[in-house]
Each structure stands twice: as structure tokens, then as C-alpha cells.
């Protein structure tokens, strides 16, 4: 066995020398393999990176929190039509109050706005003006429910909500553009055309993918105040006015399943649904979001596999063509090697190793290009990436296999050549 290993090393050296002698041809042959492996490694880096940060963000919401919405990304992903979704009944602050009365629910938060562009307004202070921000109205529990850290000052209280106080908690973006050097607490800002007192600043919020998606371009006011100033924001559509209301419910400890069931029942009763009718609202939980996300990433990975398979197939056919040519060109050499004592399997291995070395070189190049692309995207856009070792191993394994599989037919042909015929061949 020791002898065989030495022979294999020798064959590999010979294969490398052959490739070095035919640089241009070898390079052209492996283009397909390079593209395939680049796609695998590069896309894995991006998809996995996005996946991780998305999960990180979803997990911040907490495993138990239940969101009730008229509709959400979940219903789009399950293939429902927008026009049907927009005709669903609007949620109201009364719904939230009803849910809060459930035994299994610890508390709820009502959020107005935050969905469509019509709730975007500018904030101004001392002549400075922000860009158009998302203004949302919530209860005093918003920060608690959404696990949002308060960096300075405080969040508003239940009494401030009850009394429709003109107080505002700023997101990072308006804070930094209006109060770069000064303490914002107690300052008067204008939200659209009304005066508000700044009482707190929220810390940076996590975002899907870790890049800036405007998650910090936000200002939060009591929802009661929001109703007074903006009304419940309505978007006129064919089915009637649409309102952006999201209810967040936090179940009591250990009562998540019961809470989910009771919330669903309560909402169905309030909307007067018959037994055979579908829910006309969405219940969004961490689980459900992750489940849909898994499906999405699985679909992305599947299409990735298909695309790279095609590239690898093209690369493999190229390898087969070039190895067939190589065998024909070197018929005389094969005859000589046989005359000098090369057995069938040694000729077979020589050409297989040569093909595998060729495609493996393409694989190495693909891994470098793929991870390089990932890193470049990361450096330029801050898009999170992940470069797991297994994607490198997968890339190298795939590329070598392509060589072995597609090099097999030419190699078998070479090994079966008749030494006398081959030696006579010029």
C-alpha cells in the first residue's frame, strides 16, 4: 500500500506538469467550474450571513410575544392577494383592550402607524429639520414589549398615554440629526405642526441583515395623542379606509399556547367569523416568522444548487472534451507507458487525477473568488456574511468530483488502449 501511495503522488506530479504545460487550455476548461464554485461559496456566504442576522433580529422579539395585525408579510408569503388583505377589517385600540382582559395575556401594546408612507412626518428643532420619519403611536409598553433599550431619559407612562400628552421618544436617527452636541431631554420639538417635549431617546434597533433599513428613523408618541393629531391613519382603497394598527400581546409565563388560542378565539368572535371562515387577521410569532424564513432561505438555497449544478455540468462537459482531446494527443505516450509496465488502473488514475487536479484548481479559484465577493460586498455595503468552512469543503469536494466523474470516460478509454496500436500512433 505504501508503494501505491508513492505511485499516486508520482501520478499527481505528472498530472500537474501536464497542466502547467497547457496553461491556456486548462484555464479555459475550468471556467465553468470556477463559476459554479464561486456561486456556491459566494451565495452561501451572503445567504447564511443574512440568515444569521435575521434570526438574531427575530429572536430579539422574544419567543413568546404575539403580534396581531390586519395582515403581514406572512400572509403575502402564503400567497394571498393584496386586494383581499386590504379588505379585511381594521384592528382597533378596542381590540387591544379586549385582548388585555384575557387571563393568559400579561399586557398588550397598541401601535398606530408604521406601515405606510402616509404616516411619515418631519421633526424640527431650532431651525434644524429631519428627513421624513416614521411616527408611531403606542402605549407605554412599547419599549418593554419590543425589547427596545432606552438610552437617555425615559419612555412615557400610562398616565401620559391616558392624558394624551405631547411627549416624544426619539429614535437614533432624529436624535443624532437634531441634537448632535446637546442634551435632548426636555427640549421642545415640532412633530409636523405640533409641539412635543422630548422625554427619551431609544438605542439603536436591530435590523434584518444588519444594514441600515431605516429602522432608526423613528419617533414614538402616545397612541392617544397620535389619534388626536393624525387620526387613525387611513389609506383609501376600494374596500374602504385602511388603518395601520398592530397589537402586541405578551402572554403570561408558560401560557403562550393558551394565549395564542384565546387571542385567536377572541379576534374571531369580535370579527363575527363563522366556523368555516378563515381568520381575517394575522397572528405573528417568532416561530411563524422563522418558519416562513426557513422556507424562503430553503428556496434560495435550492435555486442556488440548481444554478451551480448547471455551471458545474457545463464545466464537466468542458473537462470531458478536453480530456478526450488529451487522450488522443497522447496516445503514443500511453502506449509507451504501457510498454514500460503501466497497468490499466495506473493509466486510468493518471488521467483521472489529471482531470480532478484541473477541476480542483477551478474549485480553489472559485472558493477564493466566492469568499472574495462575499467580503467585498460586506466591506462595501456592510451586508453581513458568514464564511463557514463547510462551504469551502463543499466547493472543493464538488469541483474534484466533477473532474472524477467527467474525466472517467476519457480515462477508461485511455486505459483500454492497445499498447501496440498506441505506440504506432503518431
Amino acid at each position, binding site marked *: 500500500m505504501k*508503494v*501505491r501511495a*508513492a*505511485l499516486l503522488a*508520482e501520478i499527481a506530479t505528472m498530472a500537474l*506538469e*501536464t497542466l502547467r*504545460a497547457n496553461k491556456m487550455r486548462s484555464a479555459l476548461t475550468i471556467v465553468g467550474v470556477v463559476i459554479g464554485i464561486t456561486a456556491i461559496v459566494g451565495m452561501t456566504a451572503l445567504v447564511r450571513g443574512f440568515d444569521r442576522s435575521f434570526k438574531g433580529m427575530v429572536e430579539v422579539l422574544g419567543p413568546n410575544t404575539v403580534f396581531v395585525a390586519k395582515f403581514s408579510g406572512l400572509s403575502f408569503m402564503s400567497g394571498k392577494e393584496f386586494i383581499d388583505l386590504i379588505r379585511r377589517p381594521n384592528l382597533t385600540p378596542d381590540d387591544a383592550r379586549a385582548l388585555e382582559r384575557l387571563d393568559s395575556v400579561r399586557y398588550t401594546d397598541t401601535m398606530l402607524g408604521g406601515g405606510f408612507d402616509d404616516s411619515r412626518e418631519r421633526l424640527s428643532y431650532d431651525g434644524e429639520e429631519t428627513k421624513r420619519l416614521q411616527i408611531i403611536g403606542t402605549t407605554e409598553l412599547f419599549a418593554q414589549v419590543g425589547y427596545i433599550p432606552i438610552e437617555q431619559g425615559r419612555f412615557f407612562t400610562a398616565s401620559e398615554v391616558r392624558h394624551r400628552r405631547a411627549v416624544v421618544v426619539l429614535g437614533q436617527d432624529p436624535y443624532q440629526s437634531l441634537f448632535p452636541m446637546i442634551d435632548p431631554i426636555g427640549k421642545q420639538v415640532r412633530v409636523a405642526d405640533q409641539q412635543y417635549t422630548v422625554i427619551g431617546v431609544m438605542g439603536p434597533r436591530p435590523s434584518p441583515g444588519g444594514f441600515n433599513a431605516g429602522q432608526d428613523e423613528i419617533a414614538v408618541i402616545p397612541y392617544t395623542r397620535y389619534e388626536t393629531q393624525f387620526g387613525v391613519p387611513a389609506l383609501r382603497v376600494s374596500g374602504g379606509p385602511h388603518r395601520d394598527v398592530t397589537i402586541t400581546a405578551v402572554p403570561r409565563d408558560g401560557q403562550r399556547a393558551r394565549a395564542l388560542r384565546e387571542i385567536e378565539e377572541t379576534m374571531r368572535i369580535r370579527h363575527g367569523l363563522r366556523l368555516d371562515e378563515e381568520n381575517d387577521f394575522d397572528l405573528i410569532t417568532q416561530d411563524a416568522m422563522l418558519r416562513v424564513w426557513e422556507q424562503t432561505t430553503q428556496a434560495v438555497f435550492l435555486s442556488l444548487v440548481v444554478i451551480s449544478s448547471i455551471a458545474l455540468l457545463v464545466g464537466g462537459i468542458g473537462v470531458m472534451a478536453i480530456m478526450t482531446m488529451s487522450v488522443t494527443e497522447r496516445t*503514443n*505516450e500511453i502506449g*509507451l*507507458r*504501457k*510498454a*514500460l*509496465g*503501466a*497497468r*490499466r*488502473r*495506473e493509466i486510468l488514475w493518471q488521467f483521472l487525477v489529471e482531470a480532478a487536479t484541473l477541476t480542483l484548481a477551478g474549485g480553489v479559484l472559485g472558493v477564493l473568488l466566492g469568499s472574495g465577493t462575499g467580503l467585498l460586498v460586506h466591506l462595501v455595503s456592510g451586508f453581513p456574511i458568514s464564511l463557514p468552512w463547510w462551504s469551502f469543503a463543499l466547493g472543493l469536494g464538488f469541483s474534484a468530483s466533477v473532474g472524477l466523474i467527467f474525466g472517467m470516460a476519457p480515462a477508461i478509454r485511455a486505459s483500454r488502449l492497445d*499498447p*501496440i496500436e498506441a*505506440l504506432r500512433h503518431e
Partner: protein
Amino acid sequence: MSLIEVEQLKKSYEMGSERVHALRGVDLQVEKGEYVAIMGPSGSGKSTFLNLLGCLDTPTSGRYVLNDRDVSTMAEDDLAQVRNEEIGFVFQTFNLLARATALQNVELPLVYAGVGADERRSRAETALEKVDLSDRVTHRPNELSGGQRQRVAIARALVNNPSILLADEPTGNLDSVTGAELLGLLDSLHEKGHTLFVVTHERDVAKHAQSIVQLRDGQIETIERV
């Protein structure tokens, strides 16, 4: 027991619908250390006989015992091993690997014999020394003259210490001066005890051998002692 014992060796091919009898029963015994020339017009079965002697092919019938082993019925891979251990080939067109150095070319049979790298190198160097090419070890074939190339090929044929050396028109591609030098080299190998077969159509070349086997129509016409 002779080194080579050939009994009623026959070889025929199917050529389309016709059956071509290339060899029609050859008997020959060769002792160790003999120098044999094989002559004959084209179509006489020279090449077929050489291929059989070199274990590149198996006979249709008859027996061929080389060094106490009956090789006439061996399978392909076993024949490859016999070629590797027992036979050194020298071709008219040298058949060196163009990309490899003289040393690497000479090492090639040892690669297939499974000899380790260090031993391979020293044995190849010794073989090149024997053919007086110690100063051309790292040269590639295109950096060598025709005579030097054929000497590299002889070194390659010798490196495995084979029982017989088979040379097929070894001077065919050389001018008369280098051809004569090469024949001198073969003579000296014979003196050192190697068993040599030379296939040639030149009487002057054949005269270097101890005996000249004349083939005609697939049979031995005469065996001439020189």
C-alpha cells in the same frame, strides 16, 4: 532451461473477413547473454514476433516461456508487470516524454515498479552514467542530439535490470556516425552480459549480433551464426 523458449508460436488477426497469419509457428531458444538480430522483409512477421517477445501481445497459439514463466497466456495487467520487470524497450523514434528531463524519463519504469523516489533517482543516475550521459541529467529531449536521445532511451531500458533488451531499428533515425557509436554501446552491453534482440533491415547492423534470425512469411527461414 534457456532464458527464452519459443515453441510453435502462431499469431493471426482478423482483417475484415480475411484471416491474416502473421506468424505461422516459430521455434526459438535463446540463452542468457546472447545477442540476436532479427531480419526479414516487411510483412515477414518481424514486428509481430517482436511484439510477442516484448509481451505487448499474446500469441494465438504456441508457448513462450521467458525466464521460467509462461507468458503466452497471461492477462493484460500481468503482462504489464512482466514488461516492467523483464523487458527493456528501445524504439526507432526514441519515444521519450518531451516534457520530462532525461532523468525523469529514465525513472519512468521505476515509477511503475513502485520504487521510492530516492532509490529511483540514484538508479536512474547510474543508468545514465552507463550510457555516458551523466552531464545531461537535467536536459529535456529537445536539448539533446539524436544519439543522446537514443542513449537516454537505452538507459531507460536498462534501469530495471531487465532480462532482455529489445531494440526495434535502434539506428533507424540516426546518421551513420552516431549509429555506429550506438552499436558500439550495444556491443559493450552485450559484453557486460545483457541479452539483446535487435530488429533491423540493415545487414551491417545485424552483423554485430551473434546470430541472425531471418524471417519470411511468418516463419524462420534461417538462423545464421555470425
